[in-house]
């Protein structure tokens, strides 16, 4: 049994319609380039002798980016490192000036793109909350009157007169997040702030995000975390090399992002600098019992995990391993290609197809698939480690545990007063 739809994930409900809402952010043909110095000056002597102006390389961080966001939308921007997401956010926040195109906005924007940047460690929480409030455009009196609410949300009432330099990093993040929430900015730009603080505070943040989803506030969230995109966003946009590759349904965009991720060099041990690994994952998918590709599977239904790899160079005695990881980072199951199946060598441009039938004992939830490839049957000689080649959801009735097992439980009552 398999369902091939996109919006039956556990907590995704994209019921709201925004067509009638006014546009609050509009970007048209936004472009931004940076000039990067080419000559790397590595020694003092070189620095002294290189008197000529260093050459520059043009880095086109954004090219012709257009999109619009309507009021109340939770809009995700995803992309790999260096795809231009943060640059775009900085253009929206008036930190960078765009080279071309125009951005228009309606409503008050929170001027921070990172938590706690306006904080002064030498000042107390009280003074910082006021300073931050003024930065956000509040009057000083208004900013002061927010203090109570800010501290209450951050659970830091006792530390109001402590200098921030004596705060723990967790306390700082809580305070910063709380300041952001309590500002009455209508548009929030948020760059990777999820997963902050301890579990209890994270839950609180998650609640706030859910609340924001359903409020009039417009949120732009920049993240790598596809589960956050699918959980919170109404719409998402994929940036790649400074260009918009896709805009629309968050699930769809997340999948495109993942596909892009294994097209390019995977983040393996040796070649994180962008070289292509010796073997790359071309595609990975799940199939149900009938051999149909699926993205969501029902609890207990048998699945096959399939992957298509391609060797870019010759690799001797490769081994292939996969693990399914749940959202808590627990590797629930690991499996590899058995010894007798392993080739002695794969040569350049050879295709490798892997198909593994898996008894599905996975508890409901989201799973990521990781891939390891080693050479010479040596676990320390990594050819590829890719942390995220596929993700999928197992749906069904939730029970305790990370996996479930067929059990045969009996109960018998003995003794007692009854006749």
């Amino acid at each position, binding site marked *: 049994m398999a369902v091939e739809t996109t919006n039956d994930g556990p907590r995704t409900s994209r019921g709201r319609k925004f067509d009638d809402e*006014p546009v609050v952010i509009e970007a048209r043909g936004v472009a931004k380039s940076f000039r990067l110095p080419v000559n790397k000056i590595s020694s003092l002597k070189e620095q002294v002798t290189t008197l000529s102006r260093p050459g520059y390389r043009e880095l086109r961080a954004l090219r012709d980016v257009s999109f619009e966001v309507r009021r109340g939308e939770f809009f995700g921007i995803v992309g790999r490192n260096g795809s231009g997401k943060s640059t775009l956010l900085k253009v929206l926040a008036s930190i960078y000036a765009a080279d071309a195109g125009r951005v*228009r906005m309606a*409503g008050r924007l929170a001027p921070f793109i990172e938590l706690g940047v306006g904080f002064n460690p030498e000042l107390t929480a009280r003074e910082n909350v006021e300073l931050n409030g*003024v930065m956000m455009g509040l009057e000083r009196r208004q900013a002061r009157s927010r203090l109570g609410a800010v501290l209450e949300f951050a659970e830091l009432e006792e530390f109001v007169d402590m200098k921030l330099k004596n705060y723990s990093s967790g306390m700082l993040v809580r305070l910063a997040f709380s300041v952001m929430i309590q500002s009455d900015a209508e548009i929030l730009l948020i760059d990777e702030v999820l997963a902050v603080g301890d579990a209890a505070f994270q839950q609180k943040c998650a609640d706030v995000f859910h609340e924001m989803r359903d409020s009039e506030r417009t949120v732009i969230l920049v993240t790598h975390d596809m589960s956050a995109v699918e959980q919170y966003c109404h719409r998402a946009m994929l940036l790649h090399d400074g260009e918009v590759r896709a805009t629309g349904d968050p699930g769809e965009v997340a999948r495109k992002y993942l596909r892009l991720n294994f097209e390019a060099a995977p983040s393996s041990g040796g070649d994180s600098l962008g070289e292509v690994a010796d073997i790359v994952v071309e595609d990975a998918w799940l199939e149900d019992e009938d051999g149909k590709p699926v993205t969501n599977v029902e609890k207990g239904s048998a699945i096959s995990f399939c992957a298509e790899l391609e060797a870019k160079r010759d690799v001797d005695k490769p081994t292939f391993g996969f693990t399914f990881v749940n959202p808590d980072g627990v590797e629930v199951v690991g499996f590899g290609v058995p010894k007798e199946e392993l080739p002695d060598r794969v040569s350049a441009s050879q295709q490798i197809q892997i198909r593994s039938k898996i008894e599905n004992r996975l508890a409901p939830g989201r799973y990521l698939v990781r891939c390891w490839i080693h050479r010479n049957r040596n676990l320390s000689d990594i050819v590829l480690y890719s942390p995220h080649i596929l993700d999928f959801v197992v749906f069904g009735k939730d029970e305790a545990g990370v996996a479930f097992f067929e059990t045969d439980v009996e109960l018998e009552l003995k003794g007692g007063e009854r006749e």
Partner: protein
Amino acid sequence: MSAEAPAPARTLELREVRGPSATGGGSRRFFELLWLISATEFKKSFHGTAFGYLWSLIRPLMLFGVLLVVFTRIIRFDVANYPVLLLFNLVVFGLFQEGTGGAVGSVLAQEGIVRKTQFPRLVIPLSSVVVAFFTLALNLIAVFAFILIYGIDPMWTWLFLPVILVLVLVLTGGVSLLISALNVRFRDVAIIWTVVATVLMYGSPIIYPLNIIEPSFLRDVLLANPLTLIFEQARHWIIDPEAETALQAAGSWLNMLPAVAIYVVTCLLGIWVFKREAPKIAERL
């Protein structure tokens, strides 16, 4: 992607986002931030050190002591009320020295704010000028106490003190904008500036009065320094009514022209350069 809706039920007026600027974010926010940041910076100078604020008075006082010994015991200046003149000049020049000295590296030091928030950039160098002004205001109380103890009677020309302070303040602001913006591009500016500030101190009639210098090319050069005229006039108004006014020192209105031109050009250049550089500051850091 959602299809183009025929006509959204409500439309809001969209404002153009013009990117970063020197004063971005409205004038009320600008002045509140300037005040708040200057005040907290100034308060910080009270905390953490045993003597707190006293240090900002002790520093000019120590320099004053040394110079006083040098110029009254070793090299003898025959100048009326020399000790009070010296102290007054040092404290007022402190505004220029500390204001510009704090401003030159301020934009670099506030990297986090500049790169990650939409912040009126102008606030950053100006706040160090305002802090220097707070210090000056406190120091002047001590200076005038000293002037009275020394035996100089209050004069109605003391009412011109604000004119002197505003003239120094505006120049300090203009120079601060210029060097803090340039320092983002050329980090050497901060290093050179400590030297330039020292040169300016000896190139202005601070530790000596202008009238001890014979008419010469050197005197003409000193006269082209706007600070020279300001300090000459201050001496006349505050310390010694017998002393030359700025006009008398220069000789004629025409001779004052170079200094006035340099003053105006420096201030305008500072504003122009800062405004031009402000949108690019975040990228250059």
